[in-house]
């Protein structure tokens, strides 16, 4: 018996060892060639300029054409600390008490027009991102408040000097929107990249049909040896989810990189079995219900507070998670992050209480006090099914329970952003979607627009800025967490500058032949397609 067991164990060991040996070997058997077709779940982006835009529609269409200085590790994209060089040669160690980062740049990198990419191009791109000249829009300037200067002392060196040391710098530097543009073009016409594409990334631009599709072909001069594996890609815009799911089902597309709802995942798995692979992750994304404080009666904090009190996230989140890409109740900070509020802390904030009837009674009282009984308003939303429209339908019903009547205005992405930026809305379903889980910067979304250009609440609040700056410069984790609570309480409870909805849950269903891609907590990350190959 012992002998037999011994043989069995030995046999199993050999089999296991063979499997262990075989797995890496199989994983390395990358097949080159083929064209990846994927769907972009949006209509035409406002522009193709990554520096200016904040929407995934721009990124999903253009990321494969561009390089960045550093990026998240594509083999470990769930990590919030694992960064790798893209254009640099090695990740630098900070000097000058953490205030100076010196990057050495790869030699021989070329833009797709054949001209060399140097440190000057990187420095100029980052200068425009950090300190955009007058008339130039940078959606990420506010993330880089810690940066004092960006210089290129020689063609192979870029130096970032910070105003203060902060752990938020490197994650901010790995921003996937931070495309490296050509210095000459930027200086000549900073708006050129809004309608044109010229990068140095793994794929060369072929064509863009506005709101229809984007095509790219393999860049033979790509500096990461052997990559990309694909011959090219075609990205097809389709705002309607049914179109995208049908495309994946019929194998007209391999996937979409944003996320599908549970119903679509179940449908695809049921119909396609092992031909579909599902990857899931928490998602560093949340819809915000933001009142425009430049419009009455939303300038009255009692009205904003009433709107927050009417919503029951604890009951809504589990129900919505069955039909929409949302899952977790949370405050300003990505749930699960060490800086996030725990349940007990959350419940002290308005709109997160557990006695919803009491909260709604208080909401009615506040509306009466504010002279806003029978309030009617228009909720502006984006023409994206998941989860925008689901969240809106839920919120409208919740508000109806305190006697507030809400109609909805749905706009395509371009006009939606125009309306947000122009302040032509009463309350908007907007979002805070970040790439890296970098709470210190992620929460900057609620800072006034004078500090954070993508804030649309129409308010100025020096105290909020002061609380934020104090937190950003704090290096002690415990004190930083306490300051985050102060900041969060002031934003969500004292001023109610926005109303949180459940945080998103990311589900990617892709054809099983699509290999080499790993999910991350953001639909902005890991999208340059350089690692993807087709097992066909």
């Amino acid at each position: 018996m012992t002998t037999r067991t011994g043989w069995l164990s030995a046999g199993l060991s050999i089999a296991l060892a063979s499997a262990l040996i075989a797995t890496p070997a199989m994983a390395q058997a990358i097949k080159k060639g083929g064209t990846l077709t994927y769907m972009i779940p949006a209509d035409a982006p406002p522009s193709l300029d990554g520096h200016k835009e904040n929407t995934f529609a721009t990124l999903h269409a253009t990321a494969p054409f561009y390089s960045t200085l550093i990026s998240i590790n594509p083999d470990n994209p769930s990590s919030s600390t694992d960064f790798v060089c893209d254009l640099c040669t090695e990740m630098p160690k900070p000097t000058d008490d953490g205030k100076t980062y010196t990057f050495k740049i790869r030699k021989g990198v070329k833009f797709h027009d054949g001209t060399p990419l140097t440190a000057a191009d990187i420095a100029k791109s980052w200068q425009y991102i950090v300190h955009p000249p007058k008339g130039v829009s940078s959606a990420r300037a506010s993330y880089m408040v810690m940066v004092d200067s960006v210089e290129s002392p020689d063609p192979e060196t870029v130096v970032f000097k910070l105003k203060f040391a902060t752990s938020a710098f490197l994650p901010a530097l790995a921003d996937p929107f931070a495309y490296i543009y050509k210095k000459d073009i930027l200086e000549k016409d900073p708006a050129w990249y809004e309608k044109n594409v010229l990068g140095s990334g793994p794929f060369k631009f072929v064509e863009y049909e506005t709101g229809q599709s984007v095509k790219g072909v393999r860049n033979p001069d790509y500096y990461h040896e052997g990559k990309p594996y694909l011959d090219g890609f075609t990205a097809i815009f389709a705002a309607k989810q049914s179109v995208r799911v049908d495309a994946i089902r019929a194998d007209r597309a391999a996937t979409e990189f944003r996320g599908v709802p549970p119903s679509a995942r179940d449908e695809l798995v049921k119909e396609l079995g092992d031909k579909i692979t599902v990857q899931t992750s928490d998602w560093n994304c949340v819809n915000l219900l933001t009142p425009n404080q430049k419009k009455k009666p939303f300038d009255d904090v009692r009205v904003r507070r009433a709107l927050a009190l009417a919503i029951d996230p604890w009951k809504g989140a589990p129900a919505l998670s069955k039909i929409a890409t949302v899952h977790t109740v949370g405050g300003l900070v990505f749930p699960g992050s060490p800086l996030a509020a725990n349940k007990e802390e959350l419940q002290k904030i308005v709109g997160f209480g557990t006695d919803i009837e009491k909260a709604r009674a208080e909401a009615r009282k506040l509306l009466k006090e504010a002279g806003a009984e029978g309030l009617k308003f228009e909720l502006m939303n984006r023409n994206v099914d998941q989860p925008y429209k689901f969240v809106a339908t839920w919120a409208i019903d919740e508000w109806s329970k305190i006697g507030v009547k809400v109609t909805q205005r749905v706009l395509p992405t371009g006009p939606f952003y125009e309306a947000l930026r122009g302040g032509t809305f009463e309350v908007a379903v907007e979002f805070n979607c970040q790439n890296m889980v970098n709470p210190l910067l992620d929460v900057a979304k609620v800072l006034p627009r004078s500090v954070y250009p993508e804030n649309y609440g129409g308010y100025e609040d020096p105290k909020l800025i002061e609380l934020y700056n104090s937190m950003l410069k704090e290096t002690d984790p415990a004190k930083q967490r306490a300051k985050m609570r102060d900041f969060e309480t002031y934003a969500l409870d004292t001023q109610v500058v926005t109303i949180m909805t459940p945080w998103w849950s990311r589900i990617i269903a892709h054809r099983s032949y699509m290999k080499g891609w790993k999910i991350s907590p953001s639909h902005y990350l890991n999208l340059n397609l350089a690692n993807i190959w087709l097992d066909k």
Partner: protein
Amino acid sequence: MTAVTDDTIAVRRSWHDAALGFCRRQPLGTFGLAIVVIAALAGLSAEWIAPYNPTSNDFEAMTQPPSLAHWLGTDQFGRDLLSRIIYGARTALIIGFVSAFVGGFAGLVLGVGSAYFGGTTDLILQRVMDVLMAFPLIIMALAVVAIFGTGVQNVIAAITVPLIPRCARVIRASALSIREVPYIDAARTSGFSHARIILRHMVPNVVAPFLIMLTAFVGQAILAEASLSYLGLGVQEPTPAWGLMLQGGAEEYASTAPWIAVFPGLAIALTVFGFSLFGDALRDAIDPKLRER
């Protein structure tokens, strides 16, 4: 003398007799009218007959199949489908009737005016109509919504605009022949104003084709509204609207909860079918040539 007496009797025939006559001669049209009346009654009395609040979410009852509690099942938010369809009738009929009447009357005015004044006025108006007619109804409606945005009022505008030239063209054709008849010349020579001649002598003579077109327009408008809502460009959640219900249900739950899409689809099909049957029958009843057959 005898003939005059018969005509007088015919004119004085009661509504009751006329309705019975219509039902006897036009059974299909009567069926269509019945559908239209049922839809109208449902829309008008939605508050009293709908078993549930059509916009109230019930997370305990998400995607439930038809049952005694929910005769037509529930949607993904747990909302009662029967209640949403009943309220949706109101949305469909409001948009259908308002678009058809506004578009129809604008077309009537332009069509009769164009025929009556003729010359340069007619030329310019008809070229404008040609341009508008060059676009299919739904494309034109899409363009209007793209410019002015979504919402009930904008959807009504979007559907009304393309209906105007369609009505104006038909009415003009009828009005052109009326313009040449002697009593119009007589009215002119008597010194009657243009408005009086148009309103009292021309418009009554184009009422028959106008009414027929109106019924057809209501059906077209309902279909256009459903199409716009289905495309996400019409009425928006949580307003109950049939096309919108199709959009939400047909896309995600076609295989797992087909009732979400089937019942609103049936409501659209039946109502448009009803208007179509009624319109055909009305034409047959009003047109003297067809009436004699």
